[in-house]
């Protein structure tokens, strides 16, 4: 027989406060928005939005941009994280490299964006698709690099030696040991960057020129320029649902490889 304490423990109260905060500031307003979007026409509004090619084409366009951004970020981060984790032996040097990648996260975004705009202008890439992708990668690099790096760090080094004594060269060690064991970090880095870049609108708006009209921009317009809250909320919910489904399916697939 286990006796329950008569009152919630103090520790539970510690968790309750932030929970209440999230409920009040996130879930409740979100629920209100959902109700608002259904008020004028009910669920038929969602069907209409989904059947409107103006909206779906922008969604597809954003999806492609998110995939391009995620893939580019991944391809740039993977070798960097690998090198940092496996080939920089000095811990101080390691943390310096790591800081070089993460300090940009601490700098005000507008400052970074304007600085980058200057560079892109000089290169003739201002207001181009490539320039916009460069800006996206620039913003999301740390979110990919850090999970990759930390999952590489968790790979037991002895396993790499074991693989070598079994005849594996370094690329085989990487593909057969390091990669499968780092999968959780890879999956979460990719999911994170994909989710964020799918709804991003500041970077495309500032750096993309005519290429910058993404889903995030559209929703922004609907809310703030056209004051069309029901359609704006409907689109926002659809985008959220689509990205959750994509990430869920992808995560199941990605981690299933390990089991």
């Amino acid at each position, binding site marked *: 027989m286990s006796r329950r304490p008569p009152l919630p423990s103090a520790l539970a109260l510690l968790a309750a406060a932030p929970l209440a905060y999230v409920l009040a500031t996130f879930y409740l307003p979100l629920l209100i928005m959902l109700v608002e979007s259904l008020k004028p026409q009910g669920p038929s509004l969602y069907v209409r939005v989904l059947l409107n090619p103006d909206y779906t084409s922008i969604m597809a366009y954003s999806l492609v941009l998110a995939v391009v951004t995620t893939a580019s970020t991944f391809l740039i981060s993977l070798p960097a994280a690998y090198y940092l984790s496996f080939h920089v032996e000095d811990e101080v040097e390691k943390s310096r490299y790591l800081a070089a990648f993460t300090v940009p996260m601490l700098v005000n975004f507008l400052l970074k964006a304007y600085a980058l705009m200057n560079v892109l202008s000089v290169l003739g890439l201002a207001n181009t698709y490539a320039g916009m992708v460069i800006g996206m990668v620039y913003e999301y690099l740390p979110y990919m690099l850090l999970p990759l790096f930390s999952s590489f760090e968790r790979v037991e080094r*002895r*396993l790499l*030696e*074991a*693989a*070598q004594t*079994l*005849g*594996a060269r370094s690329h085989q060690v990487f593909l*057969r040991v390091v990669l499968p064991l780092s999968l959780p970090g890879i999956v979460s880095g990719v999911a994170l960057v994909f989710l964020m870049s799918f709804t991003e609108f500041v970077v495309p708006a500032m750096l993309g020129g005519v290429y910058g009209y993404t889903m995030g921009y559209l929703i922004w317009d609907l809310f703030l320029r056209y004051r069309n809250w029901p359609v704006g909320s409907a689109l926002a919910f659809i985008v959220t649902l689509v990205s959750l489904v994509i990430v869920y399916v992808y995560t199941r697939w990605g981690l299933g490889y390990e089991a």
Partner: protein
Amino acid sequence: MARGVEVRVENVSKVFRDRGVTQALRGVSLTVRKGELFSILGPSGCGKTTLLRILAGLLKPDEGRVFFDGVDVTDVPAYERPIGMVFQDLALFPHLTVYRNVSFSLEIAGWPSDRIERRVREVLQLVRLPYEEFAHRKISQLSGGQQQRVAIARALAREPKLLLLDEPFSHLDYKIRIELIHELKRLQRETGVTTIYVTHDRNEAMLLSDRLAVMKDGVVQQVGTPEEVYRSPANAFVASFLGEVNIIPAKAVNGLIKLGDLEISLERLLPGLGNYTGDVLLLLRPESISLTPPGGDGALRFRVQLAEKVFLGPYTKLLFSGWGDIRLEALAPTREAAPLEPGSVVDVYVEASEMRVYTD
């Protein structure tokens, strides 16, 4: 039958710092014969694991060369050496099944899958893990002893010419350890692979080895069969590392030492010391001290007093106080030791040939 290599290490030195501790090998030379089961025995930090890693190709020596069958392999990377290695923490791949752990080296070598399956069955049988029951388990679903067997199977899968083991059984229960040591011995005989086994446990080393090397502070102290090294240790360290030993300091004057009321000529113990003057150490195994006079006339007789008795089953450990502050530890059959009571004064006998003298 013997498809192992001969391993020759020539004058290998290595210095490096690992977590603030300087590990070193100093001028290590030794030869391990084809098909031999060879142990490297020493306390932690003596460099035995460093030496093993150099043999595996995971570390490069600062100086010296390593030869397999006379071919210099010093600069050959681990993945090109014909080796199998069992690590102290096993280093089994946690994301792979037993089957895929064992087949790892075969997949790398590009074997066709039907041949791989045949070989995996063969090797699992060799280490006595039934294929049907274990092949598709995850590593986390195995006991410690079973994991050991998988590690050995994985190391043997592609028929290496040299098997390297780094204290593989040190974290297992005594009973399973002994069982696995006998298994390893059988395996080694069946496969004929040259095997080098690193351990700090003298019992394992003596039970297992054809020959062994004792190391201390990065230097090989002695190489020989377990019996040679036990009975004729090169120095006091080797003697005490391989078993209990009485170490008796004495002063020699013109080849004569005094032990209590006994005067002994060093010439009798070690020819060539007839005129030696200086400090000596006498080494004597507890089981060399006997309670009954031996047949020949070579025995030395000491009068001592029994201070303490420790019953060990078939044997009894006897702690005697001798002359001065000398303590002598003896190991006698219990039936001989039973009548003795602490405090009694007795004569004990030592064959001169059982006593070792060291002048350093």
